[in-house]
């Protein structure tokens, strides 16, 4: 019961199911300290929301969760504003390209496929890497050997690039080209996957830009607010695929679920959390892969022709 009609998706969904979905993803994102978009968008797709609407609405939902997270980081002084601005500038360009690409793919009927494939590749790769890393840490901790601190390899070529800028908060003096490119890639992914892209952004900032870890999380959360806000605006304007009612329901569930998730997260060790997240990410990737590989119930599908196609 409690069916709610979504005005843009033009379908009825169950209010409690969608609130629960928002809360579950919020719980996981609070527990693991991630944006959750990469879980939300596939889950929306599994529950029958079309891929383009899931992607646009997912981006809008991340705005809400990252505002909460970034405010907490802001109070601890963990945001490098100058770096965030450069990342957002790159992100805006990437988002624009991503939204237009999505529009093109929708017209030729390949948007759903490309979104699923990109998810399978990214979630699969990240899941496997995290699984190996956390399993190694757990194994070493059990055998009593000290765990060597991770160190990024030297990236001298990055320091040779022009257009250098000083980033006092991160104590860096580097070229603006790498952060611009990283920002653009994340913006593209945000438009394409409806995810904040923290899973790309955080490792890139640590290992490529060599920013201090505490600054990385805050800066990543801060820039995600703006990149997903830009994506939301562009999706609404160019693709008409944003459903504000669905986003509202998900965001309310997400904010509440997130608080319980943070508490649950404090009770678990970091490497155990990462192992759980890795398994979850792999499960989602596997499910998406199954949908691509198994023979569909009906090989035919119908969609209204897009205006202007």
């Amino acid at each position: 019961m409690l069916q709610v009609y979504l005005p843009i998706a033009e379908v009825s969904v169950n209010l409690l199911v969608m609130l629960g979905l928002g809360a579950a993803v919020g719980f996981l994102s609070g527990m693991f300290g991630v944006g959750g978009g990469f879980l939300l968008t596939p889950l929306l797709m599994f529950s029958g929301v079309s891929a383009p609407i899931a992607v646009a609405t997912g981006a809008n939902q991340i705005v809400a969760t990252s505002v909460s997270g970034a405010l907490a980081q802001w109070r601890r002084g963990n945001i490098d504003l100058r770096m965030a601005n450069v990342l957002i500038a790159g992100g805006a360009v990437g988002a624009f390209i991503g939204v237009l690409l999505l529009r093109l793919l929708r017209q030729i009927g390949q948007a759903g496929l490309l979104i699923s494939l990109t998810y399978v590749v990214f979630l699969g790769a990240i899941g496997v890497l995290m699984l190996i890393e956390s399993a190694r840490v757990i194994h070493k901790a059990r055998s009593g050997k000290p765990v060597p601190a991770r160190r990024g390899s030297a990236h001298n070529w990055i320091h040779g690039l022009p257009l250098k800028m000083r980033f006092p908060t991160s104590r860096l003096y580097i070229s603006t080209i790498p952060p611009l490119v990283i920002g653009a890639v994340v913006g593209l992914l945000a438009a394409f996957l409806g995810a904040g892209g923290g899973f790309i952004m955080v490792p890139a900032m640590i290992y490529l830009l060599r920013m201090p870890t505490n600054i990385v999380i805050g800066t990543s959360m801060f820039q995600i607010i703006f990149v997903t806000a830009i994506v939301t605006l562009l999706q609404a304007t160019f693709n008409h695929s944003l459903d504000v009612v669905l986003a509202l329901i998900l965001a309310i569930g997400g904010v509440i679920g997130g608080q319980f998730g943070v508490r649950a997260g404090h009770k678990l060790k970091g490497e155990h959390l990462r192992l759980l997240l890795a398994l979850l990410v792999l499960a989602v990737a596997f499910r998406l892969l199954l949908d691509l590989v198994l023979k569909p119930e009906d090989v035919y599908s119908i969609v209204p022709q897009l205006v202007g196609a």
Partner: protein
Amino acid sequence: MMARGLWLLFALCALSPAPAGAAEPAPTETVQSDVSTREISIQSNFAGIEIVIFGSIDFSHALAPDEGNYDVITVIRSPAEPIVVRRKEQVAGIWVNRAGRTFKGVPGFYAVLGTRPFKAITTEDTLKQLGVGFSNLEFGKNAQDDATVAAYRSALTRLKQDQNLFQEHDDGVTFIGRSLFRASVDLPANVPLGRYTTDVYLFRDGHLISKSEGTLEVSQAGFERAVSLLARDHPFVYGLAAVTIAVMIGLFGWVVFRRD
């Protein structure tokens, strides 16, 4: 009062210039109809609706409801829209949309109801002309008309049927008196918006003798209407509003649950 009224009616009939059995032909039967709900507004709790199309035959010659002289077929359809039908094929182990056909004018909703199987009511030609039955629907001129188009056509019909957006009920119209009939249709929760037409055709001995047309309007109302109008006409403002709402929810969450 009642007896007096009847008596008056009888007197009027007796005085009328064309008594039964006269040499002049009896007036031809005409059909009149209407819909139970002319305006359907979709709000957040909309879960589908049943509409009733009812009508009567003026100058009916039938003596009892089940006297099979008359047949009625009614067609309810929403505005036509272009629909793309795509077919998945396996490429390198993955199911991919390969080929597709665009049908320029497919009714978003189409229901046809009759007193008995359509082919028993009238000729195939008449059914085709009136667009009665899935097989007689015109989906608009197709640019890529070829042999495979038939497969796409039937897939389109089947998928629309699965969503209850195409309905065929050959026992959907019932007579409840000598001249009164009714037909009910379930509009599912996913009905398309727009001005629907309701056509009622009256047949006698296989011949179309009268037709009645009506419309019904399916539209969004209240908040839903405001949201979809804003999204369509001012998408940037709509997006801005969505972002603002998300920021507010985020702020609210931080204020309510902050731990620092």
